[in-house]
């Protein structure tokens, strides 16, 4: 078999293009934030059992992120992980490429329609429980590029987002505050509620 005949040069590109167009057609409305359970809890004033407390402590104290670094915010994430604003003190210095081992996706950068099916695929491959932090203005709403022809206006069009960290790019201290908010949110999850 000749090299170059394995796939014709256009076949792969056209398949990718179709995938992008179908995802775009399905993502015209934002996905609602996964927060409905919080309201009921405030009403009922749930007391967590000790099993819950321990499970939540284990989950929030070592969140492992998956690599999702399109654009400029990626570098503020990298400096957060470096020695000055150490993210390792929260147990989060593991940033591995494999989504199966991760439970947090920090979306650092603008999302374009061409990249959207790949990000959705990474998100689908992560195992439950999983959380998403939308970092930066481009991840929240499209940011400075919101009116462009190829930019998705916010990650919550294709994946549900838990914490939004504003900034362009957000300072490392802001990102650490966002991670702290996520940890407080995880601390409130109860095992009873989660059996859905």
């Amino acid at each position, binding site marked *: *078999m000749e*090299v*170059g005949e*394995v*796939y014709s*040069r256009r076949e*792969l*590109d056209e398949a990718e293009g179709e995938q992008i167009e179908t995802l775009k057609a399905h993502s015209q409305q934002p996905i609602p934030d996964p927060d409905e359970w919080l309201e009921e809890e405030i009403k009922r004033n749930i007391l967590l059992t000790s099993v819950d407390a321990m499970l939540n402590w284990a989950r929030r104290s070592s969140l492992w992120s998956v*690599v*999702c*670094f*399109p*654009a*400029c915010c*990626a*570098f*503020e994430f*990298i*400096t957060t992980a*470096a*020695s*000055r604003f150490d993210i390792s003190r929260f147990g989060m210095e593991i*940033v*591995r*490429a494999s989504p199966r081992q991760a439970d947090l996706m920090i979306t650092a*950068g*603008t999302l*374009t329609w*061409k*990249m959207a099916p*790949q*990000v959705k695929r*990474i998100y689908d491959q992560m195992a439950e429980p999983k959380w998403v932090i939308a970092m930066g203005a481009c991840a929240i709403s499209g940011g*400075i*590029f919101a*009116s*462009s*022809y*190829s*930019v998705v206006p916010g990650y919550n069009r294709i994946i549900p987002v838990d914490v939004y960290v504003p900034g*362009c*790019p957000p*300072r490392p201290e802001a990102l650490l505050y966002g991670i702290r908010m996520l940890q407080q949110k995880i601390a409130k999850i109860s095992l009873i509620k989660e059996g859905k």
Partner: protein
Amino acid sequence: MVIKTEPFVVNIGPAHPSTHGVFRMKATLDGEVIVDMEPVFGYLHRGIEKLAEERTYTGVIPLTDRLDYLASMSNNLAYCLAVEKLGGIPVPERAEYLRVIMAELQRIASHLIAVGAFLNDCGAFMTPILYMLREREKILDLFEMASGQRLTYNYMRVGGVSQDVPEEFVPALGKFVKVMPRWIDEYDQLLKENEILLARAKGVGILPKELAINISASGPVLRASGVKWDIRKADPYSVYERFEFDIPTGSVGDCYDRYRVRIEEMRQSVCILKQALEQLPQGEVRSDVPHLIRPPVGEAYGHIEAPRGELGFYLVSDNSIAPYRFHVRAPSLINLTALREMMVGWKVADAIIIFGSIDINMAEVDR
């Protein structure tokens, strides 16, 4: 027994920890050797050229920040030079010196990341890049003093810079310039004769001189292949004629040469900073330009030597408050043209190193 083998296509990317951003390579592999490769990008195409047609000339400056986000000051400088060429706007002396200081500090910061990421790809997992990021934090502190931001500065304006530096800036810069050469020497001493780096990077991914000129390569990639072409010397802009510095060139054009060129360029940048600090005059920092700039009808191409190569902006004006056409000559995109030739015949692990040594920035490739 004869085993039947056939080459197959593997995607490297777009979400891969070592592809420096969202870059995809359709590699046809025969075992582990790459026999064919097609680069695919566009995963970060945000339509900056179209967005710029809706913004005023000063409002485009934050958009240029986000082009090559590791060298924002250089992007701002190139754009402001292009608009000043278009409109014939003069720049005061102090502003010119501040621009040169910011551009050279930015060059050091960008090369620190380039060298650190290259060594990360070579296998030195985190140590060099953590050291380089520590030095970069000192530079980011200086930038934060001047402009208030850590990554996308929006500092330069048409006709000068946006505001003067505070009083702590000059002593802090003096201290940085005194200390930095020692750190560069320390990194060089640890890495220059390192056996693993020599084995992995010497002779790998050679870009011959004629091919480098033919593909319009620029920046450290061109200089490592033996061509002594630097826009700061060949077509000086701002006040670069008043400084004395060398242009480091390589001889072979392999990954090791590109690494050495970047280390030497950092040393030359420190040298320029020393001279600029001595010659810095007092004065105003922005000439009197109207709030909404309306250049006369015409076009201009302004280019500078950015850390990644020749960054040029082509502007067409029709005497309105927004540019009619805004085009970016992105060095990273053009340096990638010969990637296929450089990679064919090497293994996958070498492919990652070759790609890392060209030092591209995806936001600039895709715009």
